[in-house]
């Protein structure tokens, strides 16, 4: 697969390449499902996010397996994973690293000591508990995959993913993430509570205080190759057009669903949507993205990028619900049909 990958970055994928990639991703899926029971859809979304080189914001109640997911992911993908517990007194340097005065070759110099952000997989736990200044320290790392300290740039290891979690309750003493910060996250996923069958399985197979052991099924290099393969997934013009219309419809006044939106999604969202659609196609062993891919990942990409107005928030509207309304309102097919012709149901 490596040889064919380096041949051309634009050649369409062959069925063999698709099957090989699909097989590897299937193994990762299976390994993660062994750790996180009953969260198949969540695991698919996480994998899509990783393949798209995107960062992930997980929202859910404590104890639903957010930290477990990140740890298992690092283990299965053979990535160096680090966890940062965000607290109000956390400083930016505690994340990115600090220059320390040290004696080197008889001279005193500031030597940069890398922070926990220097890892392949960074778990920013309860990110909304840190101050905005500290939260913003992640901006450069997330967007440009580097850290600048005292004028020196320090490149982060590749691949680099940030998986942040936040708790929807206990909002006292928290700092909501600013829009610029939210826009850096490709997906925002909500972790739902498990059903009784899944809970029974968890009870039977897991013990308190014991970490689940996840075997590594993918080398770091293989993950990079899979990420590169997503670039060769074809994005048809009609699908690109659908993405554009969908994102444009989030702008206030451009659709009925956007009536309660104060600020719509950015072009970065459209780019992320296209990348995620490609990744989902690869996950399903298809050489091209389709409307279904866009529909499947659009709520995760759009929900945290929609800034709702005051009234909508008072009425309990959420970005996820509006994203669903947008999918209903914006037709996948471009071009209006005449009133005398209708789609066959």
């Amino acid at each position: 697969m490596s040889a064919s990958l380096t041949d051309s970055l634009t050649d369409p994928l062959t069925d063999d390449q698709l099957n090989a990639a699909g097989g590897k991703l299937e193994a990762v899926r299976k390994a993660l499902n062994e750790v996180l029971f009953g969260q198949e859809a969540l695991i698919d979304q996480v994998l899509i996010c990783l393949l798209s080189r995107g960062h992930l914001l997980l929202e859910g109640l404590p104890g639903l397996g957010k930290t477990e997911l990140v740890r298992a992911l690092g283990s299965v993908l053979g990535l160096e994973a680090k966890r940062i517990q965000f607290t109000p007194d956390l400083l930016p340097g505690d994340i990115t690293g600090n220059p320390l005065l040290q004696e080197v070759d008889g001279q005193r110099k500031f030597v940069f000591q890398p922070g926990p952000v220097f890892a392949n997989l960074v778990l920013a736990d309860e990110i909304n508990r840190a101050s905005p200044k500290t939260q913003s320290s992640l901006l450069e790392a997330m967007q440009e995959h580097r850290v600048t300290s005292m004028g020196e740039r320090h490149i982060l290891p590749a691949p680099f993913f940030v998986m942040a979690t936040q708790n929807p309750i206990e909002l006292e003493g928290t700092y909501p993430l600013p829009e610029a910060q939210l826009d850096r996250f490709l997906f925002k996923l909500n972790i739902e509570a498990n059903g009784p069958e899944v809970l029974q399985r968890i009870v039977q197979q897991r013990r308190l205080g014991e970490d689940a052991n996840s075997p590594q099924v993918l080398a770091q290099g293989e993950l990079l190759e899979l990420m590169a393969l997503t670039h060769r997934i074809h994005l048809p013009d009609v699908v690109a057009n659908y993405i554009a219309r969908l994102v444009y419809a989030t702008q206030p006044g451009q659709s009925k669903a956007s009536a309660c939106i104060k600020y719509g999604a950015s072009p970065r969202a459209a780019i992320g949507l296209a990348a995620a659609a490609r990744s989902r196609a690869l996950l399903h062993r298809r050489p091209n993205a389709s409307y279904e891919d866009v529909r499947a990942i659009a709520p995760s990409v759009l929900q945290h990028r929609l800034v709702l107005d005051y009234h909508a928030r008072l009425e309990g509207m959420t970005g996820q619900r509006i994203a669903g309304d947008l999918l209903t309102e914006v037709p996948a097919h471009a071009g209006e049909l005449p009133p005398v012709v209708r789609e066959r149901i």
Partner: protein
Amino acid sequence: MSESPVFREAWIRHAAVLSRLVRAGWWWAWFVKGLLPGSALCGLALLTVRILDGSAYNIWLLYGLFLTIWAWVAIRKSSAQRLSEPQALSRLDVSLGFHHRLVSAYDGVAAWPEVPVRVIPPLRWNLPATLPPAALAACLLLFAAALPLPAAREELRIEREEPVAWTETAAFVEALKRGELVQPEALESLEKQLETLREKPREEWYRQGTLETTEQMRQQVERDARTLQRALEETSALLGLAMSRQEQLTADMREQMTSMLQDLLNDLGENGLPLSEDLLSRLQTLDLDQLPQMTPEQQQQLQNMLDQACESMGQCMIAGGMPGTLDADTLAELLALMEILGAGGNPGETPGASPLTFTDQHPELAANNPFALNNPDMSRAALGDLLQVTEGEHEVETGTAGGPAGALGSEGRAGETVWRDSLLPDEEKRLQQYFQ
């Protein structure tokens, strides 16, 4: 990647079907926008034309022209809204669950999938939205074309027949043509006048201007016809008199009669309806002084010719709705002449005096032979006119006198004379002509 031209062709064909369907849908959507107002206007125009009893042909022609032009406009408008091939393939993709395999194949990044045995088009006509406008347009036109109009309109239509004066004049001209009494040029001129009037739109036939023109033409024709008829009759009477009394004519009388004949010939030739060349030339060569040299057969022939002309003219005038009559002045003049000539004459040889003229000669009125007279020409009949005289008998009291005092002493004969005495044959003939 395997590339199958057959599959490609088949899928493109399916996409083209979809594209044509959408284009036809847009065409219809645009066409309906003009169809309904156009049909409503056409229906309105049809109704108006029917009420005014005009021709609907031009309305239908305009409607057809409008539909043609609007159909062309709709084609132009709909061509911008057609479905592109990728869009059509995309719809097929979604419909068949191909996850945009067809679009990818179209873009050259995947192989064309096999064509299923049956591909159900993902789009179809929305008949509830398609048919009502067409049905409504058809109903509008049907309503306008078939709506029963009130009976008053039928009466109006009858009134739109050409004026009676035209029909009568045309019949008069036709009769004159058949009789060859009048020069053809004059008749052609008359026909042209009629044609000019008939070429006017029907709605103008009964307008004031047309009716005035018709009346003037009619009066002129009638005047000319009567002049011709009078001149013919007078000429006939004059010649008859000259032939029957040629031995008794003095030179003065002959000169007077020649002068009268010349005046009559002028009337015959210079009239608006001039006598035919043939008859006129024969009359113009006639010399009263030469009458005695003519044989009785020649004289009779000449007299017959004039009599026939008079009769023919009378029939033409009847055909043209102009009952013939002899001019009162001329009649008086001739009677005066006849009176001069008839003094001391034999009553059995001459028509004799008028029954109402007091002379010493008893007129032969043939009053014992009454006959029916009627006038079939009702065109000028008015209330109170005498339409028919039939044979009948008066109930006369036949009882003898000598009744009681104050009773009728004498039966009397004055009134009886009027109805019992019959007219002379010539007078009867003229009277018949009058009532015919």
